[in-house]
């Protein structure tokens, strides 16, 4: 075991998969020198500039070229520098990657990974902070993962690279250096489609993903001192959702709070809420609650607006306490 950061977990997953399989390669803007966020740092020295490929600045081509190479048999990892810039590639992701297997009646497939650093880190403003997962969520044919800690980050990225279908890998930028953990040195994967109970509890259930899981765990520890026991489920995979785990975690306490940084309206939490309402309405002891980013375009660049917009352990604590008291 070694203690590594979330960022190092992502890098080591790429490194190990590239060592194991010659078909795996990374492409994107600036990836050669390591990327502006350092995730691919050192990989060009190890694997050469053909396998850590600097591309022209053109997101639709980054994804479209990755799709073509995948249909030939390669295993591309396409990096979108910031998730905010994924939109020029949306047609390639939704109209193409997601439908290639289906539209060809299983003749062709598209095993690509698209890494998209997302979420607000402070002072990054409207266009370096967005959570675009809801744009892709609900597109059959895509898989979407969003790990909340270094262990899951490494295991889910390895699973994504080995997956036969396109996977969107949302890595929260605030997790990069803030989160460290013991991660096994031997090969492992975290299966796509499986949520994970990050904390056992009996009074309320928090369902979250990404950095919000981390905040939920901090808040849960503090609330434990007040006698409130929180159960925390980390979705880990957004598409397909682990319905069984969602229902199990709900049934455990009968009180659910869904938390994510993405806007509330049309977000992943809306679907989680609908699943619970469809299947477990009569086991609920309180209305389903959601704590999400407000329905504004994105976070402002000044501290007061950021504080207002962003989730925090304190905001979660308050929402969790309110639910427990219901």
């Amino acid at each position, binding site marked *: 075991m070694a203690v590594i950061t979330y960022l190092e977990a992502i890098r080591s997953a790429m490194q190990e998969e590239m060592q194991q399989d010659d078909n795996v390669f990374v492409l994107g803007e600036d990836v050669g020198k390591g990327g502006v966020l350092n995730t691919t740092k050192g990989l060009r020295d190890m694997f050469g500039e053909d396998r850590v490929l600097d591309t022209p600045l053109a997101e639709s*081509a980054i994804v*479209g070229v990755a799709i073509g190479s*995948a249909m030939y048999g390669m295993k591309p990892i396409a990096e979108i520098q910031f998730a905010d810039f994924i939109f020029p590639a949306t047609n390639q992701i939704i109209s193409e990657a997601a439908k290639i297997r289906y539209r060809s009646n299983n003749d062709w497939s598209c095993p690509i990974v698209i890494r998209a650093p997302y979420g607000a880190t402070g002072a990054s403003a409207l266009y370096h902070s967005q959570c675009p997962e809801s744009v892709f969520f609900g597109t059959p044919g895509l898989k979407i993962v969003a790990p909340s800690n270094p262990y899951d980050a490494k295991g889910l990225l390895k699973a994504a690279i080995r997956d036969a279908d396109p996977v969107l890998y949302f890595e929260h930028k605030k997790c990069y250096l803030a989160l460290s953990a013991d991660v096994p040195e031997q090969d492992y994967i975290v299966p796509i489609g499986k949520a994970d109970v990050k904390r056992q509890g009996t009074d309320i259930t928090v369902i979250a993903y990404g950095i919000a899981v981390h905040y939920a765990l901090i808040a849960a520890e503090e609330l434990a001192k007040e006698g409130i026991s929180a159960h925390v489920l980390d979705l880990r995979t957004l598409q397909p959702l682990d319905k069984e785990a969602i229902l199990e975690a709900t049934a455990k306490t009968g009180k659910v709070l869904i938390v994510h940084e993405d806007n509330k309206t049309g977000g992943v939490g809306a679907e989680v809420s609908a699943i619970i309402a469809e299947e477990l309405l009569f086991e609920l002891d309180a209305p389903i609650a959601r704590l999400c980013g407000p329905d504004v375009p994105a976070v402002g660049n000044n501290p007061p607006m950021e504080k207002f917009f962003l989730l925090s352990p304190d905001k979660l604590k308050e929402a969790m306490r309110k639910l427990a008291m219901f």
Partner: protein
Amino acid sequence: MSIGQLFKHRSLGISDEDAVRMYTVMNMATKYDERGLMLQRAGKVPFHIGGSGQYAGQVAMAFAMQPKKDYFLPYYRDFAFVLSIGMTVKDLMLSLFCKAEDVSSGGRQMPGHFGDKRYNIVTGSSPVTTQVPHAVGIALAAKMKKQDFATFVSFGEGSSNQGDFHEGCNFAGVHKLPVIFVCENNQYAISVPLHKQVSGKIADRAIGYGFPGYQVDGSDALEVFRIMKEARERAIQGEGPTLIEMISYRLMPHSTSDDDMLYRTKEEVEANRQKDGVVKFKEYLMECGLWSEEQDRELQDRQKQEINEATKYADLAPYPKPEDTLLHVYAEGEGV
């Protein structure tokens, strides 16, 4: 025609037999269009889209490529192209009738959305030009894996305005990839004429991406073949991409959902019908003494028969099972 121009096909490396075969494919594609239109008008199939007016050039391009070795990303009018590299008129009919046996999509997509892994025909969608970056990606894989194949991708002149055209050309130019971009300029993007689509010459855009661009008369099959063959050789020798703008005229409406008489005249269409490369190629073969009216009548009868059989087969073939709707969203089976 001078003696030098006669037997031009031989000087290009096309055997007499292949020259005749090229004509038979052009002719078959034209017949497919006639039948497709008739079937749609009779209410037997929901939709037909064709490429008549472009078939001579398409066949020439395909014959300059290497089937089962090169990779092909044809666009939705490339019926003669896919027939040249391995698909059959039965395959096309099964797609037209949306039947389970349709090799391209199992009856899921509209006709013209080709895909057949056996022949390296890469699955396509309806949003235009998305296939251009895919072709570049396959060419990138060829370079990374040191394979000596070329990738062919075609699209219309309307598509040459899409970002994916520019992004794909730029990427391929930067990395000198073995890909041939073919713009089949048929003068209309649905109802919008060329002068409202582009103000310059599409072939000239290649200069800006650092590789050669050529404009070629699509009714001159042998010239199209020559340019395409050179482009392929350049690709294989590591000299990078080529852009070919093939000038042609779309003789049919955009599709069976389009009334082309709202934006052009019968006279214009008829004048262009006389200039169709299929007619010109037949005349060339006859001048070379490789073809006769009698042989042509036999061919027409034989191909009519073949089309009839394919139509009947596809009409009677079963649809997919309704519950198969749920299949192949993701990989299925063990280890997934």
